[in-house]
């Protein structure tokens, strides 16, 4: 039995071309006449929609915070998705751009914005072109003008203060908070920074209402969500499933595992490793994964096989995360570099102190940046030390690895060098 649903990913073309505006209106119906702002915000609140970019903040609260600011507001749709193991936002932008653009219009109405920007990575050239074309298709139909912005390809560019800087033409680096963008964002105006999947969900809530939205998912985490599944599964890719779907069911939907699974990375590169039995006992909800010590985040999930060398994977991603530091905060710059170096050394024979040193440094970097980059990197590496304790001990004893580096976890090409 299939666990996939088609709410966001309704009516996808098998040849991969994007859903045109007329097809989109046929599939979803026209956007309803705008509710008054209060009714719209109430509907979003009753839907229980939470941000789909990773942090899971209640969308109604965020909309209200921006709406309550002074003057005209800005909507900044975050489609940057700098995280290599995640592809869900690119899928939305590429195949169903009008659902995202509907969500931008609804969000603009909800917060009182007269300007909207959709930000996408500059390397996402297909998505940028599809968006531009979709905007041409809608010309004249939108109340708020939308601009497409290409953001630099940096992991940290998706962080909301960094994204505000990027679309304002400054380097894509986080700034000290407060103020947060909902207070002072683009051009100093209150800015709603919202993930593109959240906006697409918002477009569905506006059409179908909160009761419909809650028909699937769990009571506390209602609705569907996009999951990017990669690694040792038959058909890696982006799936739309109800929140609360057992991970095992999703993996089965993706053709099952291709090799005996060893462990699962949940929540992307700011997420946690779980050993396979633990992960496959969880469902896709913060409640279930939280109880196992992990977070769902932006729902990038990678299955690692028995035959792959986990330490090589972890070392490569550690190096990537260190290189992707914005370079502003000492503990992040120096700490992540030291940790990446020490993590790469875990494969060497006789390295019995490496793990202790890494633990000490993880304690020193977590919570000490201007943004959450060091915290996320620390969570990833800390969980690897737990889950791969046996592998680490084996490498330290013999320097031998029974596995191979299958390079299951992607990093952007400029970082893709062999771990030292």
């Amino acid at each position, binding site marked *: 039995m299939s666990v996939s649903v088609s709410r966001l990913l309704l009516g996808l073309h098998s040849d991969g071309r994007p859903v045109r505006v007329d097809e989109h209106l046929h599939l979803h119906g026209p956007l309803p006449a705008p509710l008054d702002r209060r009714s719209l915000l109430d509907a979003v609140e009753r839907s229980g929609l939470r941000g789909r970019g990773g942090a899971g903040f209640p969308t109604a609260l965020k909309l209200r915070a921006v709406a309550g600011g002074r003057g005209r507001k800005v909507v900044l749709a975050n489609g940057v998705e700098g995280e290599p193991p995640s592809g869900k936002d690119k899928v939305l932008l590429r195949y169903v751009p009008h659902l995202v653009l509907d969500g931008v219009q609804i969000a603009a109405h909800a917060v009182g914005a007269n300007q909207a920007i959709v930000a996408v990575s500059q390397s996402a050239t297909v998505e940028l072109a599809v968006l531009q074309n979709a905007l041409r298709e809608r010309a004249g139909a939108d109340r708020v003008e939308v601009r497409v912005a290409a953001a630099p390809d940096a992991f940290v560019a998706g962080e909301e203060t960094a994204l505000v800087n990027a679309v304002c033409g400054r380097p894509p680096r986080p700034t*000290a908070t407060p103020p947060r963008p909902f207070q002072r964002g683009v051009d100093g105006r209150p800015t709603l920074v919202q993930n593109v999947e959240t906006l697409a969900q918002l477009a569905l809530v506006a059409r179908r209402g909160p009761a419909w939205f809650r028909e699937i998912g769990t009571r506390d985490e209602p609705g569907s969500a996009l999951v990017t599944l990669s690694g040792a599964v038959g058909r890696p890719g982006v799936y739309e499933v109800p929140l609360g779907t057992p991970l095992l069911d999703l993996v089965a939907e993706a053709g099952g595992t291709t090799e005996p699974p060893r462990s699962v990375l949940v929540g992307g590169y700011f997420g946690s490793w779980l050993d396979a039995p633990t992960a496959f006992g969880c469902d896709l909800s913060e409640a279930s994964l939280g109880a196992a010590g992990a977070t769902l985040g932006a729902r990038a999930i990678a299955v690692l096989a028995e035959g792959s060398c986990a330490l090589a994977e972890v070392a490569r991603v550690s190096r990537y995360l260190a290189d992707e530091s914005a370079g502003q905060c*000492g503990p*992040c710059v120096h700490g992540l570099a030291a940790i990446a170096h020490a993590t790469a050394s875990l494969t060497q024979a006789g390295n019995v102190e490496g793990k202790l040193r890494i633990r000490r440094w993880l304690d020193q970097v977590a919570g000490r940046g201007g943004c959450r980059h060091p915290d996320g990197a620390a969570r990833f590496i800390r969980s690897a030390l737990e889950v791969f304790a046996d592998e680490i001990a084996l490498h330290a004893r013999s320097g031998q690895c029974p596995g191979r580096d299958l390079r299951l976890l992607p990093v952007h090409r400029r970082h893709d060098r062999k771990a030292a």
Partner: protein
Amino acid sequence: MSSTLRVNPIACDGHGLCAELFPERIALDDWGYPIVDGSPIPRPLEQHAQRAVDTCPVLALRLERLTRHDR
């Protein structure tokens, strides 16, 4: 009303003077950047905290008043 120390990690360059002046609440990490204990500062120590704040060459350290809404 009491106060607490906060460091702006983006502004901080790791000069380390704060830790020398106020070791009761500020330690340095392995790279020389301050690890600030954010708990409320007792009245008798406030002068030391203020001196650490005033000495920071890049104004990265602040003494913040805790309102009753804070922890």
